[in-house]
Structures are given as structure tokens and as C-alpha cells.
């Protein structure tokens, strides 16, 4: 008892011949179907070379196009020929010219001998699997598909639309439940002959002729009628990409294929000489097999599909430039933006770096240059601190910075002085943690020694800018973690909000802050604000600041018990 091989060939005849000889050497009879479209010397040489072998037959040629009936007709004719010509065949294995046996053929024969009644055919109902590409899962059995998907795409699509609009639903032939699965099956003589000599075969054929991709459903459906023992998996390793095309194997997949533990792989690149040499040589049989690891091949191809459909979060590059809202994450990593903190505290950046262990930059969007951590002029990825380059595309600057430093949390300062165009991108980024002390920009003004008229103009300008920023941060579409305090609110109890922010950054194990940042000396700040008011410029973003702050406010916060924990 042996296994008969049906081989569907349409190209790369020298490789097909090589594989055919490999099967023949193990005594497997072969029926070859060559696509009717094929002409030329290579094909003629292929036929001449093989036709003298007593175990080779060529079946009636059909025109085979992907998704059409021709492939089923070809398989039917080839299977009939196989069953009629070779009495000793118990299992019939459908392969293609670009399939490659990975394990010695004797192992396959022995494997099938142990399972004389088992049909290996992947066969699942359409409702239960999400395999199909293009959205035509159930509909492929309910509509008519007279047009070619490849060559008459427009007609194909319109005809589907029309049928959907008309509510067309084809009547299924009596007794069948549509199943589908890989087209590469291995069926027993009993099942196959039952399918081929079914009295209703004409009706089935008529129905499947107008189904879409019948080669993935004809045998898969009919095998369910006759088989006593279906094992719903294909013996052929065949991986599909997101468009439903099979992945191709190359020389560098050699180790992977060796460990795949499958009998046959599809599809192999015809120029992958090393794969053909290794797997079709006699030496393959003697090689002590490595521990099978079929999962690995799955993972590699699953990752490839994921890379193609979802990409790497936060990456913008020549072949990934997502439309607005389709980024799968706007940036590559979490980051924190502080507005007003470095104005209100002395050496806030140093304190933050010590407390959280993150990389803390100054004003990345400062008007003169990007103030990178540690006074660097170039950062990871050779990102320069030049303001003109940065402001030419402030959004890309941030995306680049976060991509280049992935793995290390970034913090930076922001203020109304800085490039304003970027705030909306930060606001809609779920990776951003934005903390704002509104009105804190007034502290440097208060400390400066400028003319009051200039201060007043500057204060008015900054207030207007910050007001616009706060509007954007408060937008219902903002997705960042945003906290806004007025300055008056904040200095009431500065440690509580800081504790919350630091905990959320969460780099170190949660504990009470051991060291508090030092507040700027704000004595006379209330009066400063009052002076602005007296000049007709009402600073409102700071909240309500008393002209003379009660001195106890500062003491109170220092006395809070958790601050000085021993």
C-alpha cells in the first residue's frame, strides 16, 4: 500500500521535475496536471523527461486561475486517473509543483500506514473561523461568482454589490454543509472515490462551479459526507499572509523547516537551491532529526502579518506613515510634561531626576534651542538641539525623541514661551502625562528686573498663550493624563500633587517623597500681581492670590506628617 501524489504544476518545471523524481524514488506514483495556459520548451522538456517513467501519468489539462473552478476540475480528473491507474494507492496526496517534502517519503508512507482510514483535510465551517480575506466568508457560498477576481476585478465587485442589493441567496444542494480549509489534502481511496462517483456529483459540481475559491471548499465540504474519520488539518505546512497569499520559503528558512515536523511545505521559492539540495538529497534521511519545534514557524509568520497590519507603535518612517487617528499609539513610550514647575521650584529638574530616575530635559521646545538633559547638544539618534530644525516639524521631533529613547521614560518642561504647535499632539496622546501649574510663568517675571511696562506686556502675552493651551488640554478629545492646578491652589499643598505625579510615573517602588523640592521665594508675589491688576492687566490664571499671603500657609504644608518620615 502506498501514497499517490497529485501534482499541480504551472511554472518552475525543473524544480517540479526534481520533486517528482524524489517522490518516484520512494515508489510513489504521480499524476501531474499542467495548467492549460502553459506552453513552451520548458514544459515540453518536462513532459518528455518524465513520461518514460512507468509511475507517471499526465491528466487532462484545465485552465487554472486562482479562485476559479479549474483547480477543482484538475484535481478531480487527476484523482480519477490516479485511482484507476494505480491499484495499490490507498492515500492520495494533493500537492503543487512548489511543494517540498521535508521528511523522508518513507516516513510519510509509514505514518499513513498507521492511519489507513484517516482523511487529512482541513475542514471548518465558515461561521467558526476568521480565515477569509476580503470579507466574503459566508457569501462565497451564497452568491454567484462568474467573474475573475484577478482580471475582472471591477465586474467582480459590482456583481457582488448587485447581488447583495437584490438579496441573492443561492440554494445549497441537498445535504451539504459548506466547509472550507486548506486546498492541500490527503484523502483515502474510499473517501475520494465516494466523492468522485457520487450520483449527485453533477449537482454538486454545478453548484461549486460558481462558488468563490471552490478549491478551498469542494473537497472540504464533500469529505464531510463520506469520511468516517476526518482529521481536520493539512499535512502540508502552508502559511498565509494577510492578503491570503502563501508565504514563500527561502534558503534562510532551512533550520526552521528542519524543525517544523511537517511532511510537506509550501511554497518554496524555485531559486532556493539550498533547500532543494538539502531536502531532496538522500542524506536528508540519515540526518538525525532535531527536536521538532513547529511553533516557531507559526510565530515568525504571525509576527510578519502583525508587522504589516499593525506596525511598530510610535514609529514614523518611509513605509509607515499612519493617517490621523490610525497610529496604534501616537508615540513610542510614556512621557511626562511639566508646565510651571521649573518656574515655581528651584532646581526642579535635578530634583525630578533624583526622585524618579528618569531622563529629565529642560524646555525641549525652548525658543533658543532644545534643552536636552545634561546640557547635551545632540541626543539619541543624533537628534540635534537646533530650534529651526525642531520647529520645522515639532511633532516629528517629539516622535523621534521618544522612538530613539524607547525603554527610558522621558520628562520635559514646557511653558508658554515654547513652540506652541506641539501641545495639541501631546494632548491627544495617551502616552503623555501632562501637569500644569497655570500662571507660574509670572514668577520669573516677578523676579526679573525689567521695566514694569515691559513686564505687563509680557504677562498679557503669556497669559493669552497659556489660556489657549489650557483650552486645548481641556478639549474633550484630549487623551493624555492631564492635571491642571492654578498656582494658588498648588502652593497651598504642593506635596500632595507632586506625590500623585511621581507615583504615576512609577519608576521606583512607591514610597513617600523623602526630599521636597524648594519653592521659590514668593514674598511680595501677591503685591506684584496686584500691581499688574492696578495697571489694568488682570492675571487670572494663578487663581486667587492674597496681596499679603498669610505666613502660616507655607508652615502648614511643611508640618504635614508624612513629609518627614523616618
Amino acid at each position, binding site marked *: 500500500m502506498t501514497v499517490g501524489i497529485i501534482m499541480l504544476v504551472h511554472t518552475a518545471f525543473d524544480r517540479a521535475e526534481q520533486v517528482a523524481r524524489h517522490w518516484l524514488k520512494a515508489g510513489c506514483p504521480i499524476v501531474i496536471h499542467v495548467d492549460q495556459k502553459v506552453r513552451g520548451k520548458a514544459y515540453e522538456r518536462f513532459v518528455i523527461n518524465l513520461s518514460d517513467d512507468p509511475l507517471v501519468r499526465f491528466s487532462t489539462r484545465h485552465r487554472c486561475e486562482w479562485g476559479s473552478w479549474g483547480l477543482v476540475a484538475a484535481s478531480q480528473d487527476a484523482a480519477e486517473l490516479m485511482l484507476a491507474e494505480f491499484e495499490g494507492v490507498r492515500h492520495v496526496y494533493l500537492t503543487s509543483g512548489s511543494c517540498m517534502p521535508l521528511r523522508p517519503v518513507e516516513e510519510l508512507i509509514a505514518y499513513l500506514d498507521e492511519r489507513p482510514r484517516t482523511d487529512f483535510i482541513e475542514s471548518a465551517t465558515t461561521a467558526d473561523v476568521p480565515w477569509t480575506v476580503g470579507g466574503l466568508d459566508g457569501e462565497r457560498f451564497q452568491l454567484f461568482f462568474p467573474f475573475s477576481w484577478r482580471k475582472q476585478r471591477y465586474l467582480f465587485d459590482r456583481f457582488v454589490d448587485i447581488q447583495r442589493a437584490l438579496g441573492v441567496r443561492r440554494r445549497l444542494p441537498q445535504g451539504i454543509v459548506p466547509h472550507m480549509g486548506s486546498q492541500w489534502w490527503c484523502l483515502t481511496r474510499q473517501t475520494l472515490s465516494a466523492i468522485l462517483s457520487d450520483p449527485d456529483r453533477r449537482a454538486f459540481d454545478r453548484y461549486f462551479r460558481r462558488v468563490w475559491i471552490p478549491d478551498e471548499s469542494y473537497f472540504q465540504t464533500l469529505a464531510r459526507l463520506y469520511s468516517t474519520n476526518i482529521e481536520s488539518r493539512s499535512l502540508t505546512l502552508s502559511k498565509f*499572509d*494577510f*492578503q491570503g*497569499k502563501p*508565504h*514563500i520559503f*527561502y*534558503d*534562510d528558512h532551512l533550520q526552521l523547516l528542519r524543525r517544523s515536523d511537517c511532511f510537506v511545505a509550501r511554497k518554496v*521559492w524555485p*531559486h532556493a537551491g539550498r533547500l532543494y539540495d538539502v531536502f531532496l538529497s538522500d542524506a536528508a534521511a540519515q540526518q538525525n532529526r532535531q527536536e521538532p519545534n513547529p511553533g516557531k514557524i507559526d510565530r*515568525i*509568520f504571525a*509576527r*510578519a*502579518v502583525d*508587522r*504589516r*497590519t*499593525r*506596525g*511598530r507603535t510610535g*514609529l*514614523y*518612517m*518611509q*513605509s*509607515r*506613515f*499612519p*493617517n490621523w487617528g*490610525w*497610529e*496604534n499609539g501616537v508615540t513610542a513610550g510614556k512621557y511626562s510634561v511639566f508646565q510651571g514647575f521649573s518656574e515655581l521650584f528651584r532646581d526642579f529638574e535635578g530634583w525630578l531626576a533624583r526622585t524618579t530616575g528618569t531622563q529629565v530635559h529642560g524646555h525641549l521646545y525652548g525658543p533658543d534651542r532644545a534643552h536636552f538633559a545634561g546640557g*547635551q547638544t*545632540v*541626543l*539619541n*539618534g*543624533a*537628534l*540635534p538641539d*537646533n530650534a*529651526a*530644525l525642531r520647529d*520645522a*516639524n515639532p511633532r*516629528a*521631533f517629539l516622535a*523621534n525623541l521618544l*522612538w*530613539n529613547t524607547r525603554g527610558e521614560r522621558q520628562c520635559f518642561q514646557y511653558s508658554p514661551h515654547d513652540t506652541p504647535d506641539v501641545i495639541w499632539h501631546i494632548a491627544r496622546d495617551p502616552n503623555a502625562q501632562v501637569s500644569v501649574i497655570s500662571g507660574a510663568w509670572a514668577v520669573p517675571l516677578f523676579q526679573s528686573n525689567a521695566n514694569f511696562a515691559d513686564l505687563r506686556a509680557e504677562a498679557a502675552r503669556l497669559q493669552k498663550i497659556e489660556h489657549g493651551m489650557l483650552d486645548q488640554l481641556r478639549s474633550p478629545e484630549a487623551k493624555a493624563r492631564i492635571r491642571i492646578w492654578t498656582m494658588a491652589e498648588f502652593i497651598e499643598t504642593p506635596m500632595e500633587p507632586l506625590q500623585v505625579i511621581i507615583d504615576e510615573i512609577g519608576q521606583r517602588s512607591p514610597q513617600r517623597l523623602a526630599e521636597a523640592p524648594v519653592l521659590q521665594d514668593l514674598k511680595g508675589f501677591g503685591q506684584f500681581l496686584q500691581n499688574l491688576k492696578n495697571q489694568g492687566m488682570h492675571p487670572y490664571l494663578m487663581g486667587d492670590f492674597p496681596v499679603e499671603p498669610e505666613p502660616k500657609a507655607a508652615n502648614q504644608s511643611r508640618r504635614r506628617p508624612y513629609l518627614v518620615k523616618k
Partner: protein
Amino acid sequence: MGAWRSYRLRLQRKRWRVRALRKSRELTPVSDRTDQLRRSDIFVFCTARNEAIRFPYFLKYYRDMGVNHFFIVDNDSTDGTLAYLAQQPDVSVWSTRGSYKRSRFGMDWINYLLRKYAHGHWALTVDPDEFFLYPFCDTRPLRALTDWLDASSIKSFSAMLLDMYPKGRMDAQPYQVGQNPLEIASWFDSGNYTISRNKRFGNLWIQGGPRARVFFADRPERAPALNKVPLVRWDKRYTYVSSTHMLLPRGLNLVYDEWGGEKASGLLLHTKFLDTFSAKAAEELERKQHYAGSSEYLAYHAVVKDNPDLWCKWSEKYINWRQLEILGLMSKGNWA
């Protein structure tokens, strides 16, 4: 896109094609080996001027990759480039004394040759200092890529220009004939590229790298474009519009994914910055045959004569394509 704009682009495409035909009169065949061409061949197209020192390695690099035939336009070289190329068995050479600038920086000549010879072939259009890199290029020949692109119904393949530079002064290590230029110019900028979309042609406009960082820091909008689509399954209706940055019809420019995924892409390692560069920059300044009144070369010259070191602390040293893939400069897409 409205019908009117689509029609305008169509007219533009035809105009470039007619122009290429007109400019083809400037080309004189020197060594025409196009009778060797076979149907499945992969071609390289190239314009060159005084690059004799680079061609031995250039030809070797692309031959090893599996390119079958080279089409080279020699623009009035004086260093024996023409004689060298004419001896090569797989190179067809045309010579011209026409203006590089008035042939739209060689693109008219190349468009003509592409149209005449590359119909139905995969054609790679590169400069003599550009080295094409694609996913798995260390284990799979170029034909594996083009076969895969064919199977995936992809007609054009993106490869951003990645400027390579040496560490230290540019003239510190002289380049020798036949040497791999990446042995000298082995450093690059990994993460300072900015992208915007060109609505009219549908392509991405990428700027950045050491040239933007050093030469164009004060005028970022003038920094050279780095986006390129050098590998195309050519059809005689196609035409390059501006260098290999973009093509018409504009569907060919859609080499990037807009819905969050990554398409497969490669890189062109640009080894312009060798010891030969300062002489070249001075000459190009003289000839004024480059883009925008050679303003690019003007900018180079100003910097290059003082301190030609593009290297910085965060420069990356080139290892292989996998490194570039991890850094996010190119992508495997769904090719595995």
C-alpha cells in the same frame, strides 16, 4: 482627487515623456549590449560624471546582488569612466555632453532609457554612490525580492536615502579603487528624520540626517529630500518626476502604509561623503549643474572647507540590514 487634477497629472506625465524623447537626441550609444537582454532580467539605471574610482565596486556590489544588466549614461566624464564602462560585458553605455541641469538632473535621459528598455522589467535607478539594501539582502538575492513583490502585486519599492559618513575629517582616509566605501563611511544618523506628505503626488517628503543637521540647520526647508522609490517594475507609461523621489502615475508613490501597518522597504546607503567629496563639491559649485542653483553644494562648500566632520556622539555605526530594521529606518513588512 478630482478629475481635473487627475487630468493635469496625466498631462504632466505625458509632458515628461515627450521631453525625455526630445532629450534622448543628446545621447550617443557607446557600447550597446542590449541584444543580450532576457525577459526576466533585472536592470540598473545610472547617470554618472567622473566616477571612475567608484564604478569597480559599484558594479561588483550590484552584480553580486543579482542585477543582470547596467544602463549607464556618462555625462562628459574626463577621468576614463567611459572607457572603463565600455569594457564591461554587462554594461550598456551612452555618452552625452548635454547639460545635466537641463536634462532635469539626468532624469530625462534615464526616463528615455527606462521607457525604451525596461518595459516589463524590474529596474533599479541609483547613483554611483548609492548602495541599495533590502530586507534579507544578506541571505536572499534581489530576485527573491522582485519575485515576492510580483506575487504581492506590488509595483514599486521604497528605499530612503541614508547618508553615510566617516568618523573624523572626511579626507582622513582616502578611498581606493574597488574598496567598499562603507569601510570608510560607516556611520549614520538613526533617528532625526522628519516626514510630511506631498498631497499632489501622494509621496512622502523625508528630510533629516547629517545633511540637515550640519549643512541646513538654519534653513530646514531647503534640506535635501531623502525619500526615494528606486525599484520599480517598469511600464512604458511610467515616468520619474523629480530624481527618483516620485513617479507618475502617482499610485506608484504610495509605498507607505496609512493605516498603522508597515510596508516592506529598503534603504539606499549614500556614500557621498568620502575624501572625494570636497573636490566634487568645488567642481559642482563651478558648474552650477545641480538642483536650485547648486545651493546644496554652496552650503556644503561653506562647511566642508573648515571642519568636515559629520560624526557626533550619537552617530550609529553600520552593521547590517537587521540593525537598520530594528532602528526603524527600513521594514520587513510582511516578508518573512
